[in-house]
């Protein structure tokens, strides 16, 4: 039925009048209603609004000249502000927050004709790698309901993997699109920092956050990114650069493509890549070789420091980004505050989860007087070195390939008591955010029935190249079209 169709196919069917947007929207709403109890991938389902939007889309389609995505239902991560719809960021703090405005991503997608099915679950304020920190409870992995879907965009990943939505939006601060995409066997791309507007996307770590699409395939992600990307005058960090048609070069041959393999990522260090994951990645690399690509060993000497650097920069920025949640103008306010300090400390103490509070404290500490140079400044200097490593690498290669995660999805509860081991599950994804470059994750096989993801990392603004490289692989493989048994 419709859930086995890609966005590319659904769009063609809508344009040809073979299905209406209302039909399609109702179909996915039903699927959510019937199956999401197992996954908990949605925080809010917008039935009424979605059907109303679908109706409008059908009229636009009838009138002709409707944009490519018109009538396609999509889910938004609950980090994007949506006018008139609850925007919780999976926190008790915003459980009662009905946003009075739309994020630019939401506006752009709406203009492209997308219908919003609802808001997906996530780690609270995007802080987490397993979706277990959500105020609305953990999300389950469609491939194994005992396993985590990854995070923080776990709801979006699970919803797309189970085809409760044809595609979804996500955000990625340290791997939050790529790691859940890998764990759930879908395709996701984190664009270059500044490519997609951050306006209306609730900030976690401002200098690292970037939104991107999560879909069934590279070609679907290309279509969605066409709608999401673009300069936004409301975001000072948005880049004033024309957006190419990401679908245009998908079929370009890969002859002569130079693929860099960071030797640090393939080293057998403790906590490094699981052997079976490594074998699967190597098979994928061989397929690329067969398509005419050349494999080149490269060095990213400072990459080992990505995790420590990230756990200074991200908490520092988040500690002040989250200061606005004070119980004064919106959001949670504690009962009967006895004075101003009580209002602040109890509202925040009661409404932020443990991981969020932990990161706020780490960040507050790192920025505090006497520690700034040793932590924040030092981290920003190392960030420069990590970024320079990539710059040097791209003088020798076109793209870099690496595992997305050291292992497949772990079980719910397995790491939730140990922040450090949780942090280390992002070891291969974090450096990309520090450097601001684009990267994606594509499914390349299964280990013990769980999906394995491979990262393709590009130089600044090379999204089209990444999508092309991923698409060529997906034309030869069917990992990305394989569905979990329970959701076929």
């Amino acid at each position, binding site marked *: 039925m419709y859930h086995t169709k890609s966005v590319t196919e659904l769009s063609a069917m809508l344009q040809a009048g073979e299905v209406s947007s209302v039909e399609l929207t109702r179909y996915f709403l039903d699927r959510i209603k019937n199956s999401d109890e197992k996954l908990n991938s949605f925080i809010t389902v917008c039935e009424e609004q979605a059907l109303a939007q679908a109706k409008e889309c059908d009229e636009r389609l009838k009138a002709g000249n409707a944009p490519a995505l018109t009538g396609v239902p999509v889910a938004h991560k609950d980090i994007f502000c949506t006018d008139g719809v609850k925007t919780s960021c999976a926190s008790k703090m915003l459980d009662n927050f009905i946003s009075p405005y739309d994020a630019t991503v939401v506006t752009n997608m709406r203009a492209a004709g997308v219908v919003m099915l609802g808001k997906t679950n996530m780690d609270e304020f995007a802080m987490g790698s397993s979706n277990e920190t959500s105020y609305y409870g953990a999300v389950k992995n469609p491939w194994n309901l005992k396993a985590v879907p990854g995070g923080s965009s776990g709801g979006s990943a699970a919803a797309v993997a189970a085809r409760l939505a044809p595609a979804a939006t996500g955000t990625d601060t340290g791997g939050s699109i790529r790691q859940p995409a890998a764990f759930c066997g879908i395709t996701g791309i984190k664009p270059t920092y500044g490519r997609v507007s951050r306006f209306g996307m609730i*900030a976690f770590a*401002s200098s690292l956050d970037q939104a991107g699409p999560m879909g069934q395939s590279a070609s679907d992600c290309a279509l969605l990114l066409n709608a999401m990307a673009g300069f936004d005058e409301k975001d*000072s960090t948005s880049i004033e650069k024309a957006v190419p048609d990401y679908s245009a070069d998908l079929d370009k041959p890969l002859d002569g493509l130079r693929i860099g393999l960071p030797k640090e990522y393939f080293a057998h260090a403790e906590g490094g890549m699981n052997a079976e994951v490594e074998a699967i990645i190597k098979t994928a690399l061989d397929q690329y070789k067969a398509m005419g690509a050349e494999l080149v060993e490269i060095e990213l000497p400072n990459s080992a420091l990505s995790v420590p650097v990230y756990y200074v920069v991200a908490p520092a920025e988040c500690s002040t980004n989250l*200061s606005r949640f004070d119980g004064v103008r919106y959001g949670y306010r504690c009962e009967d505050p006895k004075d101003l300090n009580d209002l602040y400390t109890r509202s925040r103490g009661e409404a932020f989860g443990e991981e969020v509070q932990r990161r706020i404290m780490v960040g507050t500490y790192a920025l505090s007087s006497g520690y700034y140079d040793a932590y924040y400044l030092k981290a920003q200097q190392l960030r420069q070195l990590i970024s320079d490593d990539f710059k040097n690498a791209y003088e020798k290669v076109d793209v870099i390939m690496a595992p997305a995660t050291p292992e497949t999805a772990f079980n719910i509860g397995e790491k939730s008591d140990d922040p450090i081991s949780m942090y280390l599950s992002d070891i291969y994804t974090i450096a990309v955010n520090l450097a601001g470059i684009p990267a994606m994750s594509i499914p390349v096989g299964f280990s013990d029935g769980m999906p394995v993801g491979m990262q393709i990392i590009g130089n600044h603004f090379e999204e089209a190249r990444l999508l092309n490289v991923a698409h060529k692989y997906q034309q030869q493989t069917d990992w990305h079209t394989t569905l979990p048994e329970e959701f076929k």
Partner: protein
Amino acid sequence: MSSAASNEWGQWEVVIGLEIHAQLATRSKIFSGASTAYGAEPNTQTSVVDIALPGVLPVLNKEAVHMAVKFGMAIKAEVADRSVFDRKNYFYPDLPKGYQISQFDLPIVGPGTIDIELESGETKTIGVTRAHLEEDAGKSLHEDYAGMTGIDLNRAGTPLLEIVSEPDMRSAKEAVAYMKKIHTLVQYIGICDGNMQEGSFRCDANVSVRPKGQEEYGTRAELKNINSFRFVERAINIEVERQIDLIEDGGEVVQETRLYDSVKNETRSMRSKEEANDYRYFPDPDLLPVVITEEYRQQVRAELPELPEQKQKRFMEELGLSAYDAGVITASLALSSYFDTVAEKTGDAKLSANWITGELSARLNREEIDIADAAVDAGAFALLLSRIKDNTISGKIAKDVLDAMWKGEGSADEVIESKGLKQITDTGAIEAFVDEVIANNPSQFEELKGGKDKMMGFFVGQVMKMSKGKANPAQVNELIRQKMK
């Protein structure tokens, strides 16, 4: 010990530095498109950015940057090629984001100087350490809302230029002179309306004392948010007195923020702001470095209007005003525009200057009001001076007319008419007075004719008295001389 000038603090030397906050006269806020107009209903001039909704981002106002650069060029300061916005973190209900966007390490305006005139007539140069852009906070209204405080965020996000001086001032009077100088300058260059009642221009004073001859500074107290020149002087003097008394009694000054209470005329510690003042400054990741090119600096320099000192010089050279008159008039933009209007309408710059620095200023000082609040506007004042020039009234009568006008009794012409103050220019009428005075004082008249010139004053005086001041003195003089022949 009572308030006194700096050299009267005995063995103590006073050290003062000022942080002046000038609200920039932009139409919209520094990081949002909401209006900055004063006096609107609470919270009606706030955008999603100003109330710090989740997900919003700041975008810098071009005009705020322009105005800051203008100030930098006006004080011949270094305007930075590259300046950076930082977050200053603290929790307060009038600070919606929980941090203020300000500039810490790399301010837009670097070191510059301002010259002030001391009472002795000497000039003293005060160092301006820096001036940086930042956003204003909202307002807390402490009137009782069922035991709660009300928060109005209309002011939140209004652009401020914080102008920080070196600790170069040695008395409250110097501090006031410096503050007035900056006040005038920002209005001249059109970057701030200078309205102190509305809080557009306010200052914090860092005050310390040290034994004369000691190089090291004493511990300073920061006096917060003083919004009038008079209060600056009083607050500093009362604080100096407090510090000296404290030290002389064997105590120690603690570094703290203090609030000046103008009703009780005392400063007191603001304990609430004392705790946890670790501001955790770091570069705001939502904003990028502001880059100013040499070309832009030149362009802004070229568009600077005539500055107070240039204007003073021109008034002396072109209009022949005295250094004193030209100084007083140009020390305030409002006063100098008042002068411009009066001088233009009367066509007599010198007469206008004399009257403005004399009679008008005396009345303003007496009532402790600003030229903007003067009871007689420039047009009405010019009409009064014109009546002196066309001999309708004498200068002496004009002072009485001005008093009546000040009390709201009408225009110069109305007052002259209603009080019958019109000068008598009818020769016949004046001659009658002259004849009568001569007839009453025959011996004195003989002395006058005998060459005792001093007697002339006596006769003119008598005639003026008889005419109740309305006779034209020049005509009186002329007629007496005719009678002497």
